[in-house]
C-alpha cells in the first residue's frame, strides 16, 4: 500500500518534495561493516537498531562486504590492488575473503536468511550482483548505512538512486574518518539523489507507515 512521505527539501532544481512509497518494499543495506573497519560505537548501535527493526518487521536486510576474493587481490583492478587503504611506507593492504578481518562485525551476526554479498570495489553495483537480488526481492526503497560515508556508501547509494531506487541515506548510521567528506556526501546526496535522515526519523517513519500497512509483510 503506497503512502506519501516527505522526500527532498526544495532548493535543487529537480528536487522531489513528496514521494508515494510502499514501505513493504524496503530493504536495509548495511555497507562494509567488517572487522577491519574501525567503527564509532554509536554508529554500530544505530545500525543494530535499524537492523533489529527491519528484522522484526520481516523486511530484507542485506550486508555488503568489501575486500578481495583472492589472497593476493588479483581480482581487484590494479590501482586498487596497489593502493586501497594502504598507509604510506607500508605494504599493500590485503583483506581477502576468508580472513578474520573480512568478516562482518561480530555484533551484526547475520541470520542464515539474510543476504551477505561480497564486492571487490567501492560501489556495489560495479562488483556485486546487488541489482539482480534487489530485483528478485521486489525492493523499491533502500535504507543505506555503513562505512565509509564518502567512499563505499556514497558510490553505492548514488548508483542505487541513479538506477531508480528510492534511497534514504541515514546520516548518523554512516561513518567517515574525514568529517568534511562525510558532510559533502550527505549534502550532495540530498541535493541530487534522495533523502537524508537520522536513525530516529527512519524508525519513527517506518513504524508509522507499517502500522497502516496490511498485515502479512513478506
Amino acid at each position, binding site marked *: 500500500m503506497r503512502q506519501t512521505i516527505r522526500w527532498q527539501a526544495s532548493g535543487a532544481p529537480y528536487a522531489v518534495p513528496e514521494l508515494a512509497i510502499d514501505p513493504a518494499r524496503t530493504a536495509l543495506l548495511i555497507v562494509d561493516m567488517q572487522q577491519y573497519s574501525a567503527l564509532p560505537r554509536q554508529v554500530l548501535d544505530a545500525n543494530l537498531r535499524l537492523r533489529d527493526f527491519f528484522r522484526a518487521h520481516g523486511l530484507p536486510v542485506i550486508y555488503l562486504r568489501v575486500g578481495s576474493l583472492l589472497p593476493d587481490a588479483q581480482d581487484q583492478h590494479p590501482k586498487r590492488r596497489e593502493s586501497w587503504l594502504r598507509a604510506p611506507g607500508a605494504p599493500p593492504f590485503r583483506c581477502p575473503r576468508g580472513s578474520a578481518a573480512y568478516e562482518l562485525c561480530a555484533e551484526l551476526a547475520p541470520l542464515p536468511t539474510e543476504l551477505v554479498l561480497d564486492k571487490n570495489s567501492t560501489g556495489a553495483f560495479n562488483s556485486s550482483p546487488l541489482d539482480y537480488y534487489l530485483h528478485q526481492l521486489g525492493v523499491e526503497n533502500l535504507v543505506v548505512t555503513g562505512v565509509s560515508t564518502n567512499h563505499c556508501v556514497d558510490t553505492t547509494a548514488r548508483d542505487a538512486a541513479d538506477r531508480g531506487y528510492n534511497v534514504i541515506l541515514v546520516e548518523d548510521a554512516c561513518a567517515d574518518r574525514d568529517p568534511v567528506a562525510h558532510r559533502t556526501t550527505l549534502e550532495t546526496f540530498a541535493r541530487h539523489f*534522495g533523502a537524508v535522515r537520522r536513525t530516529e526519523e527512519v524508525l519513527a517513519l517506518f513504524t508509522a507507515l507499517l502500522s497502516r500497512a496490511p498485515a502479512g509483510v513478506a
Partner: protein
Amino acid sequence: MRGSIPWQPPRPDRYTIAELAIEPRATALLLLDLQVAHLDPERGLGRRLRATPAQHAYYYTRVAEVVLPNVARLQAFFRAHRLPIVYTRLGLLTADGRELASWSWHAAAQRVAGDIPPRYPPGAPERELWPSLAPRPDELVLDKSTLSPFNSTMLDQYLRNMGVENLVIAGVLTDAAVETTARSAGDRGYNTIVVEDACAALAAEHHTAALATASWYVCKRTDEVLAQLGALLETDGPR
C-alpha cells in the same frame, strides 16, 4: 607507447600513486550531457534556474566562458590524434517515459517538473547536443535515462571493445553526472581523469566539494591533459 603521467598528489595519511604508466592511444574523451537542456540559459534547466538567479548567472557564465571553450580544445585534440570520443545525452527513451518504474523517484521527478522535466523525450530540441559539438559519424552518441552511462547504457562494453583504458571526462553537472560517472569508471578500473575546468556545477562550492572528495579518479586542468597526453603521443609519431 606507454609513458608516465603525474597521477595523485602526495598525502601524509595515505599511500598515493604519484605517477601512472599509461598507453596514451588507449584514451577516450567522454563528454557528458552537453545538450541544449543543460547549456541554453533560456531552455530546460535554464528555465528552472530562473527561480534562483544567482545560480543561473554563475552556471551559464561558467558554461560559456570556461566549459565550452575547454571542451572545444579537448575535442579538437582528441580528433587530431584520432582518439575515440563518446557523447552522452540525458533523456527518456520513450515518448511518455514508461521505461521509468512507476514507483521510482525518477518518475516522480518527471511528473513534478511539469513541462520543464529533468529528462526530455525523443525529438525534443532540449535533448539535442549543443550545436558546436557536431559529433562525427565515427564518434559514439549514447542516450541514457540515468546520470551515469554505466547505469543505463552498455558504455563499459563498448570501451572495452575499443581497448580504452584511460577516460578523460568533461561535462555537467560536476557533482551529479560527472562525479557519478567518474566514480564508477575509476571503480571499474579505468584510469579516470575529470577535467575540472571543463565541468560545471550549479554553484562553485558544489563543484569544488565534489572534486575535493574524488574517489578513484583524479582531476586535471585542460592545459595539463593536453600537455601530458600530447607529450606521450608525440613520441609515437604521426598516425
